Protein backbone atom coordinates (compact mmCIF):
# COMPACT_ATOMS: atom_id res chain seq x y z
CA UNK A 1 0.00 0.00 0.00
CA UNK A 2 2.89 2.33 0.77
CA UNK A 3 3.94 2.10 -2.87
CA UNK A 4 0.50 2.84 -4.21
CA UNK A 5 0.10 6.17 -2.47
CA UNK A 6 2.67 8.14 -4.48
CA UNK A 7 1.26 6.57 -7.61
CA UNK A 8 -2.19 7.87 -6.81
CA UNK A 9 -0.74 11.30 -6.22
CA UNK A 10 1.16 11.18 -9.47
CA UNK A 11 -1.90 10.08 -11.43
CA UNK A 12 -4.06 12.80 -9.94
CA UNK A 13 -1.48 15.47 -10.59
CA UNK A 14 -0.82 14.40 -14.15
CA UNK A 15 -4.52 14.10 -14.91
CA UNK A 16 -5.47 17.60 -13.83
CA UNK A 17 -2.44 19.78 -14.26
CA UNK A 18 -2.69 20.21 -18.06
CA UNK A 19 -6.40 21.01 -17.85
CA UNK A 20 -5.89 23.56 -15.12
CA UNK A 21 -3.26 25.29 -17.17
CA UNK A 22 -5.79 25.86 -19.94
CA UNK A 23 -8.49 27.37 -17.78
CA UNK A 24 -9.19 31.06 -17.55
CA UNK A 25 -11.49 32.74 -15.09
CA UNK A 26 -12.72 36.31 -14.59
CA UNK A 27 -15.52 38.01 -12.66
CA UNK A 28 -15.27 41.68 -13.55
CA UNK A 29 -16.28 41.44 -17.17
CA UNK A 30 -18.27 44.12 -18.96
CA UNK A 31 -21.78 43.41 -20.20
CA UNK A 32 -24.05 45.86 -21.97
CA UNK A 33 -27.51 45.66 -23.48
CA UNK A 34 -29.05 48.24 -25.74
CA UNK A 35 -32.75 48.79 -26.31
CA UNK A 36 -33.67 50.76 -29.42
CA UNK A 37 -37.34 51.63 -29.46
CA UNK A 38 -39.06 54.33 -31.56
CA UNK A 39 -39.23 56.81 -28.68
CA UNK A 40 -36.32 55.77 -26.52
CA UNK A 41 -32.88 54.24 -26.82
CA UNK A 42 -31.12 53.29 -23.65
CA UNK A 43 -28.40 50.97 -22.45
CA UNK A 44 -27.77 49.01 -19.32
CA UNK A 45 -24.27 48.10 -18.24
CA UNK A 46 -22.60 45.92 -15.64
CA UNK A 47 -19.01 45.21 -14.71
CA UNK A 48 -19.79 42.01 -12.89
CA UNK A 49 -19.83 39.46 -15.67
CA UNK A 50 -18.24 36.22 -14.44
CA UNK A 51 -16.89 33.59 -16.76
CA UNK A 52 -14.83 30.45 -17.08
CA UNK A 53 -13.31 29.18 -20.30
CA UNK A 54 -11.32 26.02 -20.83
CA UNK A 55 -9.25 26.06 -23.99
CA UNK A 56 -8.54 22.36 -23.81
CA UNK A 57 -12.05 21.01 -23.37
CA UNK A 58 -13.80 23.90 -25.11
CA UNK A 59 -16.09 24.46 -22.15
CA UNK A 60 -17.47 27.95 -21.51
CA UNK A 61 -19.61 29.09 -18.60
CA UNK A 62 -20.72 32.67 -18.01
CA UNK A 63 -23.19 34.32 -15.72
CA UNK A 64 -24.24 37.84 -14.85
CA UNK A 65 -25.89 39.03 -11.67
CA UNK A 66 -28.74 40.98 -13.27
CA UNK A 67 -29.21 43.15 -10.22
CA UNK A 68 -25.92 44.86 -11.13
CA UNK A 69 -27.24 46.22 -14.44
CA UNK A 70 -27.39 49.99 -14.45
CA UNK A 71 -29.40 51.93 -17.03
CA UNK A 72 -28.42 55.30 -15.58
CA UNK A 73 -31.77 55.94 -13.90
CA UNK A 74 -32.36 54.25 -10.59
CA UNK A 75 -36.14 54.08 -10.89
CA UNK A 76 -35.79 52.49 -14.33
CA UNK A 77 -33.33 50.00 -12.83
CA UNK A 78 -35.86 49.11 -10.19
CA UNK A 79 -38.59 48.67 -12.76
CA UNK A 80 -36.25 46.55 -14.90
CA UNK A 81 -35.41 44.29 -11.97
CA UNK A 82 -38.90 44.12 -10.57
CA UNK A 83 -41.28 44.34 -13.52
CA UNK A 84 -39.34 42.79 -16.38
CA UNK A 85 -36.51 40.52 -15.25
CA UNK A 86 -38.03 39.46 -11.94
CA UNK A 87 -34.57 39.23 -10.39
CA UNK A 88 -35.92 38.13 -7.04
CA UNK A 89 -36.74 34.79 -8.62
CA UNK A 90 -34.30 34.80 -11.54
CA UNK A 91 -31.22 36.76 -10.51
CA UNK A 92 -28.84 35.53 -13.21
CA UNK A 93 -28.42 35.49 -16.96
CA UNK A 94 -26.34 32.47 -17.88
CA UNK A 95 -24.66 30.85 -20.84
CA UNK A 96 -23.13 27.40 -20.61
CA UNK A 97 -21.80 25.39 -23.51
CA UNK A 98 -18.80 24.68 -25.64
CA UNK A 99 -16.87 26.66 -28.17
CA UNK A 100 -14.69 26.01 -31.13
CA UNK A 101 -12.41 28.11 -33.24
CA UNK A 102 -13.87 29.04 -36.58
CA UNK A 103 -10.52 28.46 -38.26
CA UNK A 104 -8.46 25.29 -37.89
CA UNK A 105 -4.80 25.08 -36.88
CA UNK A 106 -4.86 27.10 -33.72
CA UNK A 107 -1.33 27.87 -32.72
CA UNK A 108 -1.50 31.36 -31.35
CA UNK A 109 -3.99 33.70 -29.74
CA UNK A 110 -1.91 36.82 -30.07
CA UNK A 111 -4.51 38.16 -32.46
CA UNK A 112 -8.28 37.99 -31.94
CA UNK A 113 -9.46 34.61 -33.15
CA UNK A 114 -13.09 34.15 -34.13
CA UNK A 115 -14.91 31.50 -32.19
CA UNK A 116 -18.42 30.12 -32.11
CA UNK A 117 -19.96 29.08 -28.84
CA UNK A 118 -22.89 26.71 -28.78
CA UNK A 119 -24.87 26.22 -25.64
CA UNK A 120 -27.84 27.20 -23.55
CA UNK A 121 -28.66 30.80 -22.71
CA UNK A 122 -30.95 31.32 -19.73
CA UNK A 123 -32.62 34.48 -18.53
CA UNK A 124 -35.91 35.02 -16.67
CA UNK A 125 -35.91 31.28 -15.99
CA UNK A 126 -36.33 30.39 -19.66
CA UNK A 127 -33.54 28.55 -21.47
CA UNK A 128 -32.91 28.64 -25.18
CA UNK A 129 -30.28 26.93 -27.32
CA UNK A 130 -28.04 29.63 -28.74
CA UNK A 131 -25.05 30.00 -30.99
CA UNK A 132 -22.91 33.05 -30.24
CA UNK A 133 -20.09 34.49 -32.32
CA UNK A 134 -17.13 36.12 -30.67
CA UNK A 135 -13.36 36.42 -30.50
CA UNK A 136 -10.70 35.32 -28.04
CA UNK A 137 -7.10 36.39 -27.73
CA UNK A 138 -4.36 36.49 -25.16
CA UNK A 139 -3.87 39.67 -23.20
CA UNK A 140 -0.80 41.75 -23.99
CA UNK A 141 1.39 40.04 -21.43
CA UNK A 142 0.14 36.64 -22.47
CA UNK A 143 -1.02 35.64 -19.02
CA UNK A 144 -4.72 36.15 -19.57
CA UNK A 145 -7.42 35.79 -22.13
CA UNK A 146 -9.83 38.34 -23.55
CA UNK A 147 -13.19 37.26 -24.85
CA UNK A 148 -15.58 39.52 -26.72
CA UNK A 149 -18.97 38.61 -28.13
CA UNK A 150 -22.22 40.18 -29.16
CA UNK A 151 -25.65 38.74 -29.76
CA UNK A 152 -29.30 39.61 -29.64
CA UNK A 153 -31.90 38.56 -27.11
CA UNK A 154 -35.58 38.64 -27.95
CA UNK A 155 -37.57 39.34 -24.79
CA UNK A 156 -40.43 37.28 -26.14
CA UNK A 157 -38.18 34.20 -26.35
CA UNK A 158 -37.73 34.33 -22.60
CA UNK A 159 -41.28 35.21 -21.58
CA UNK A 160 -40.28 38.72 -20.59
CA UNK A 161 -43.61 40.40 -20.99
CA UNK A 162 -43.70 43.60 -23.01
CA UNK A 163 -47.27 44.83 -23.38
CA UNK A 164 -48.15 46.74 -26.52
CA UNK A 165 -48.60 49.92 -24.50
CA UNK A 166 -44.84 50.13 -23.90
CA UNK A 167 -43.60 49.17 -27.37
CA UNK A 168 -42.46 52.69 -28.14
CA UNK A 169 -40.11 52.87 -25.17
CA UNK A 170 -38.81 49.31 -24.94
CA UNK A 171 -37.58 47.21 -27.82
CA UNK A 172 -38.32 43.51 -27.97
CA UNK A 173 -34.83 42.92 -29.32
CA UNK A 174 -32.03 43.69 -26.90
CA UNK A 175 -28.52 43.92 -28.37
CA UNK A 176 -26.03 42.43 -25.94
CA UNK A 177 -22.29 42.98 -25.96
CA UNK A 178 -19.79 41.43 -23.56
CA UNK A 179 -16.07 41.79 -22.97
CA UNK A 180 -14.20 39.97 -20.25
CA UNK A 181 -10.57 39.61 -19.33
CA UNK A 182 -9.79 36.34 -17.64
CA UNK A 183 -6.76 35.26 -15.73
CA UNK A 184 -5.25 31.83 -15.91
CA UNK A 185 -6.84 29.71 -13.28
CA UNK A 186 -4.22 28.28 -10.97
CA UNK A 187 -5.06 26.32 -7.85
Amino acid at each position, binding site marked *: *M*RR*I*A*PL*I*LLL*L*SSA*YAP*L*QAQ*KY*FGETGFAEFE*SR*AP*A*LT*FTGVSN*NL*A*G*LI*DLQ*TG*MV*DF*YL*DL*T*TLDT*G*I*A*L*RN*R*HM*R*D*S*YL*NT*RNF*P*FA*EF*TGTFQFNEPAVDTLLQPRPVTATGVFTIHGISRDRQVEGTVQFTGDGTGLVLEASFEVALEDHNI*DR*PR*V*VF*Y*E*LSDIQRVRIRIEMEQ*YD*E
Partner: protein
Amino acid sequence: MMNKSFGKAVIFAVLTLGLVLPVRAQLERRMVVQDRPVELTFMAPRSINLLTTEMLSRGEMHYAIMHSFGELENGWRNFYGIDNGAVIRFSLEYGIADDFSVFVGRSGLDKVFDTGVRYRFLRQMEDGSMPVSVALTASTGLNSSEYNFLGSTEFSLYDRTSYYAGLPVSRKFSDSVSLQLTPMMARFNRTGFEISIPSDARWYYGIGLSGRYRITGRLALTGQFIWSENDLGDAVRNNVALGLDIETGGHVFQLFFTTTQSLNDAYALAGRNGNPMDGGFRFGFNVNRLFMLHR
Protein backbone atom coordinates in the same frame (compact mmCIF):
# COMPACT_ATOMS: atom_id res chain seq x y z
CA MET B 1 -5.42 -0.92 9.91
CA MET B 2 -5.03 1.45 6.98
CA ASN B 3 -1.51 2.49 6.18
CA LYS B 4 -0.84 6.11 7.20
CA SER B 5 0.74 7.08 3.87
CA PHE B 6 -2.18 5.70 1.98
CA GLY B 7 -4.57 7.59 4.22
CA LYS B 8 -2.71 10.84 3.63
CA ALA B 9 -2.72 10.22 -0.08
CA VAL B 10 -6.46 9.67 -0.10
CA ILE B 11 -7.04 12.84 1.93
CA PHE B 12 -4.83 14.80 -0.42
CA ALA B 13 -6.62 13.36 -3.43
CA VAL B 14 -10.03 14.24 -2.01
CA LEU B 15 -8.90 17.78 -1.24
CA THR B 16 -7.40 18.16 -4.68
CA LEU B 17 -10.53 16.89 -6.38
CA GLY B 18 -12.64 19.11 -4.18
CA LEU B 19 -10.76 22.16 -5.35
CA VAL B 20 -10.59 21.24 -8.98
CA LEU B 21 -13.93 19.69 -9.83
CA PRO B 22 -16.20 22.65 -9.07
CA VAL B 23 -14.11 24.80 -11.37
CA ARG B 24 -14.14 22.24 -14.13
CA ALA B 25 -17.93 22.18 -13.95
CA GLN B 26 -20.22 25.22 -13.77
CA LEU B 27 -19.18 28.27 -11.85
CA GLU B 28 -20.92 28.70 -8.56
CA ARG B 29 -23.54 31.45 -9.00
CA ARG B 30 -23.03 34.22 -6.49
CA MET B 31 -24.93 37.46 -6.04
CA VAL B 32 -22.71 40.54 -5.97
CA VAL B 33 -24.81 42.09 -3.18
CA GLN B 34 -26.44 39.68 -0.74
CA ASP B 35 -28.64 41.90 1.42
CA ARG B 36 -30.84 43.82 -0.94
CA PRO B 37 -33.45 46.42 -0.08
CA VAL B 38 -37.03 45.90 -1.12
CA GLU B 39 -37.72 47.86 -4.28
CA LEU B 40 -40.73 49.38 -5.96
CA THR B 41 -43.08 49.41 -3.04
CA PHE B 42 -44.84 51.92 -5.26
CA MET B 43 -44.21 52.62 -8.92
CA ALA B 44 -43.26 56.30 -8.52
CA PRO B 45 -42.29 58.86 -5.89
CA ARG B 46 -45.94 59.86 -5.71
CA SER B 47 -49.01 57.65 -5.66
CA ILE B 48 -52.12 59.63 -6.70
CA ASN B 49 -51.83 62.66 -4.37
CA LEU B 50 -49.44 61.49 -1.69
CA LEU B 51 -45.68 61.18 -1.67
CA THR B 52 -44.41 57.67 -1.08
CA THR B 53 -41.18 56.21 0.28
CA GLU B 54 -39.86 55.72 -3.26
CA MET B 55 -36.82 57.97 -3.45
CA LEU B 56 -34.57 59.26 -6.18
CA SER B 57 -30.95 58.34 -6.45
CA ARG B 58 -28.21 60.91 -6.22
CA GLY B 59 -28.15 63.02 -9.36
CA GLU B 60 -31.63 62.04 -10.55
CA MET B 61 -34.31 64.52 -11.51
CA HIS B 62 -37.97 63.63 -11.25
CA TYR B 63 -40.40 65.65 -13.30
CA ALA B 64 -44.09 65.22 -12.64
CA ILE B 65 -47.14 66.86 -14.09
CA MET B 66 -50.39 66.27 -12.26
CA HIS B 67 -53.95 67.03 -13.36
CA SER B 68 -57.30 67.07 -11.67
CA PHE B 69 -60.43 67.85 -13.69
CA GLY B 70 -63.99 68.79 -12.79
CA GLU B 71 -66.42 66.53 -10.98
CA LEU B 72 -67.98 63.64 -12.84
CA GLU B 73 -71.43 64.88 -11.87
CA ASN B 74 -71.02 67.63 -14.45
CA GLY B 75 -72.37 65.04 -16.83
CA TRP B 76 -71.75 64.07 -20.39
CA ARG B 77 -72.30 67.58 -21.81
CA ASN B 78 -69.16 68.61 -19.95
CA PHE B 79 -67.57 65.28 -20.70
CA TYR B 80 -67.76 64.35 -17.06
CA GLY B 81 -65.66 67.24 -15.83
CA ILE B 82 -63.05 67.38 -18.55
CA ASP B 83 -64.61 70.54 -20.03
CA ASN B 84 -64.32 72.26 -16.66
CA GLY B 85 -60.60 72.43 -17.12
CA ALA B 86 -57.91 71.05 -14.92
CA VAL B 87 -55.96 72.06 -11.90
CA ILE B 88 -52.37 71.36 -12.85
CA ARG B 89 -49.26 70.98 -10.75
CA PHE B 90 -45.75 70.83 -12.15
CA SER B 91 -42.96 69.64 -9.94
CA LEU B 92 -39.25 69.00 -10.11
CA GLU B 93 -37.45 66.90 -7.56
CA TYR B 94 -33.71 66.38 -7.40
CA GLY B 95 -31.82 63.67 -5.57
CA ILE B 96 -29.00 65.21 -3.56
CA ALA B 97 -28.19 61.84 -2.05
CA ASP B 98 -29.69 58.40 -2.53
CA ASP B 99 -32.15 58.95 0.30
CA PHE B 100 -32.42 62.72 0.35
CA SER B 101 -34.05 64.99 -2.20
CA VAL B 102 -35.41 68.49 -2.60
CA PHE B 103 -38.37 69.54 -4.68
CA VAL B 104 -40.25 72.55 -5.97
CA GLY B 105 -43.73 72.61 -7.40
CA ARG B 106 -46.40 74.95 -8.59
CA SER B 107 -50.10 74.19 -8.42
CA GLY B 108 -52.88 76.11 -10.15
CA LEU B 109 -55.14 75.87 -7.10
CA ASP B 110 -54.54 79.14 -5.23
CA LYS B 111 -51.47 79.54 -7.46
CA VAL B 112 -49.32 77.91 -4.80
CA PHE B 113 -45.58 77.48 -5.13
CA ASP B 114 -44.26 74.86 -2.79
CA THR B 115 -40.80 73.63 -1.93
CA GLY B 116 -39.67 70.87 0.37
CA VAL B 117 -37.38 68.03 1.26
CA ARG B 118 -37.72 64.28 1.54
CA TYR B 119 -35.49 62.02 3.57
CA ARG B 120 -35.82 58.25 3.84
CA PHE B 121 -34.17 57.06 7.00
CA LEU B 122 -35.34 53.45 7.10
CA ARG B 123 -35.55 51.04 4.22
CA GLN B 124 -37.32 47.68 4.08
CA MET B 125 -34.90 44.81 3.42
CA GLU B 126 -35.59 41.60 1.55
CA ASP B 127 -34.16 39.48 4.35
CA GLY B 128 -36.67 40.95 6.79
CA SER B 129 -34.07 42.69 8.96
CA MET B 130 -36.04 45.91 8.40
CA PRO B 131 -39.76 45.38 7.88
CA VAL B 132 -40.75 48.86 6.69
CA SER B 133 -39.48 51.91 4.87
CA VAL B 134 -39.94 55.27 6.58
CA ALA B 135 -39.40 58.72 5.14
CA LEU B 136 -39.92 62.26 6.31
CA THR B 137 -41.43 64.91 4.08
CA ALA B 138 -41.53 68.59 4.95
CA SER B 139 -42.61 71.41 2.71
CA THR B 140 -43.77 74.97 2.70
CA GLY B 141 -46.16 76.63 0.31
CA LEU B 142 -46.63 80.18 -0.85
CA ASN B 143 -49.99 81.35 -2.14
CA SER B 144 -49.36 83.75 -5.02
CA SER B 145 -52.96 84.59 -5.87
CA GLU B 146 -54.01 88.17 -6.50
CA TYR B 147 -56.14 89.45 -3.62
CA ASN B 148 -56.81 93.03 -4.65
CA PHE B 149 -60.51 92.31 -4.50
CA LEU B 150 -60.18 92.24 -0.72
CA GLY B 151 -59.74 96.00 -0.84
CA SER B 152 -57.69 97.44 1.95
CA THR B 153 -57.30 94.11 3.76
CA GLU B 154 -53.68 93.22 3.80
CA PHE B 155 -52.69 89.78 2.57
CA SER B 156 -49.14 89.54 3.78
CA LEU B 157 -46.37 87.08 3.04
CA TYR B 158 -47.11 85.47 6.39
CA ASP B 159 -50.76 85.09 5.41
CA ARG B 160 -49.79 83.42 2.19
CA THR B 161 -47.60 80.78 3.79
CA SER B 162 -48.53 77.20 4.64
CA TYR B 163 -46.56 74.26 5.94
CA TYR B 164 -46.80 70.50 5.64
CA ALA B 165 -45.10 67.50 7.25
CA GLY B 166 -45.69 63.83 6.57
CA LEU B 167 -44.15 60.58 7.72
CA PRO B 168 -44.91 57.85 5.16
CA VAL B 169 -44.38 54.35 6.52
CA SER B 170 -44.62 51.70 3.84
CA ARG B 171 -44.34 47.97 3.53
CA LYS B 172 -44.31 45.76 0.48
CA PHE B 173 -46.13 42.66 1.67
CA SER B 174 -45.66 40.71 -1.54
CA ASP B 175 -44.87 41.30 -5.19
CA SER B 176 -48.50 42.36 -5.56
CA VAL B 177 -49.53 44.15 -2.38
CA SER B 178 -48.02 47.29 -0.87
CA LEU B 179 -49.47 49.57 1.79
CA GLN B 180 -48.43 52.89 3.21
CA LEU B 181 -49.61 54.87 6.21
CA THR B 182 -48.82 58.56 6.23
CA PRO B 183 -49.38 60.52 9.42
CA MET B 184 -49.60 64.08 8.17
CA MET B 185 -50.16 67.60 9.38
CA ALA B 186 -50.56 70.97 7.74
CA ARG B 187 -50.66 74.54 8.92
CA PHE B 188 -52.22 77.47 7.06
CA ASN B 189 -51.31 80.86 8.47
CA ARG B 190 -54.49 82.36 7.15
CA THR B 191 -57.76 80.71 6.25
CA GLY B 192 -61.02 82.07 5.00
CA PHE B 193 -63.33 82.16 2.03
CA GLU B 194 -60.57 83.61 -0.14
CA ILE B 195 -58.48 80.44 -0.22
CA SER B 196 -59.46 76.99 -1.45
CA ILE B 197 -59.83 75.19 1.83
CA PRO B 198 -63.29 74.97 3.29
CA SER B 199 -62.73 75.54 7.01
CA ASP B 200 -61.28 78.24 9.22
CA ALA B 201 -58.99 75.89 11.13
CA ARG B 202 -55.31 76.71 10.94
CA TRP B 203 -53.97 73.26 11.86
CA TYR B 204 -54.92 70.04 10.10
CA TYR B 205 -54.07 66.51 11.11
CA GLY B 206 -54.77 63.26 9.38
CA ILE B 207 -53.56 59.87 8.25
CA GLY B 208 -53.20 58.91 4.64
CA LEU B 209 -53.58 55.31 3.57
CA SER B 210 -52.13 54.40 0.19
CA GLY B 211 -52.35 50.97 -1.36
CA ARG B 212 -51.18 49.22 -4.46
CA TYR B 213 -52.22 45.93 -5.98
CA ARG B 214 -50.10 44.92 -8.91
CA ILE B 215 -52.04 43.25 -11.69
CA THR B 216 -49.07 42.61 -13.99
CA GLY B 217 -45.47 43.73 -13.99
CA ARG B 218 -46.42 47.11 -15.42
CA LEU B 219 -50.00 47.62 -14.28
CA ALA B 220 -51.19 48.25 -10.77
CA LEU B 221 -54.44 49.27 -9.12
CA THR B 222 -53.96 52.02 -6.57
CA GLY B 223 -56.08 53.42 -3.80
CA GLN B 224 -55.93 56.32 -1.39
CA PHE B 225 -57.85 57.35 1.68
CA ILE B 226 -57.00 60.42 3.72
CA TRP B 227 -58.69 60.50 7.08
CA SER B 228 -58.90 63.98 8.55
CA GLU B 229 -58.82 64.36 12.30
CA ASN B 230 -60.45 67.77 12.06
CA ASP B 231 -64.07 67.33 13.08
CA LEU B 232 -65.69 69.84 10.84
CA GLY B 233 -68.70 67.99 9.57
CA ASP B 234 -69.10 68.10 5.84
CA ALA B 235 -66.68 70.99 5.55
CA VAL B 236 -63.70 68.65 5.47
CA ARG B 237 -64.59 65.25 4.12
CA ASN B 238 -62.16 62.42 3.99
CA ASN B 239 -60.46 61.99 0.66
CA VAL B 240 -61.04 58.86 -1.40
CA ALA B 241 -59.27 57.95 -4.63
CA LEU B 242 -58.88 54.93 -6.90
CA GLY B 243 -56.42 54.68 -9.73
CA LEU B 244 -54.34 52.73 -12.20
CA ASP B 245 -50.55 52.94 -12.57
CA ILE B 246 -48.96 52.14 -15.91
CA GLU B 247 -45.21 51.76 -16.25
CA THR B 248 -43.98 52.11 -19.82
CA GLY B 249 -40.22 51.69 -19.60
CA GLY B 250 -39.52 55.42 -19.36
CA HIS B 251 -42.63 56.97 -17.84
CA VAL B 252 -45.05 56.09 -15.10
CA PHE B 253 -48.60 57.18 -15.93
CA GLN B 254 -51.10 57.34 -13.09
CA LEU B 255 -54.80 57.60 -13.94
CA PHE B 256 -57.24 58.06 -11.08
CA PHE B 257 -60.58 59.18 -9.81
CA THR B 258 -60.37 61.29 -6.68
CA THR B 259 -62.68 63.41 -4.56
CA THR B 260 -60.30 66.38 -4.38
CA GLN B 261 -59.01 68.83 -6.92
CA SER B 262 -55.98 69.51 -4.69
CA LEU B 263 -52.65 68.28 -5.91
CA ASN B 264 -50.10 69.14 -3.25
CA ASP B 265 -49.97 67.44 0.11
CA ALA B 266 -51.14 70.25 2.38
CA TYR B 267 -54.18 70.92 0.25
CA ALA B 268 -54.87 67.20 -0.14
CA LEU B 269 -55.22 67.07 3.66
CA ALA B 270 -57.08 70.33 4.22
CA GLY B 271 -58.76 70.92 0.89
CA ARG B 272 -62.35 70.44 -0.14
CA ASN B 273 -63.54 66.95 -1.07
CA GLY B 274 -66.54 65.88 -3.05
CA ASN B 275 -68.97 63.40 -1.58
CA PRO B 276 -67.86 59.98 -2.82
CA MET B 277 -71.40 58.64 -2.34
CA ASP B 278 -72.87 61.35 -4.52
CA GLY B 279 -70.75 61.51 -7.66
CA GLY B 280 -68.13 63.67 -6.08
CA PHE B 281 -65.27 62.04 -7.91
CA ARG B 282 -63.22 63.73 -10.55
CA PHE B 283 -60.79 62.35 -13.09
CA GLY B 284 -57.09 63.09 -12.83
CA PHE B 285 -53.79 61.82 -14.06
CA ASN B 286 -50.09 62.17 -13.28
CA VAL B 287 -47.18 61.74 -15.64
CA ASN B 288 -43.85 60.89 -14.01
CA ARG B 289 -40.51 61.02 -15.79
CA LEU B 290 -37.00 60.63 -14.42
CA PHE B 291 -33.74 61.91 -15.82
CA MET B 292 -30.17 61.38 -14.72
CA LEU B 293 -28.47 64.77 -14.55
CA HIS B 294 -25.12 63.39 -13.48
CA ARG B 295 -23.67 60.25 -11.99
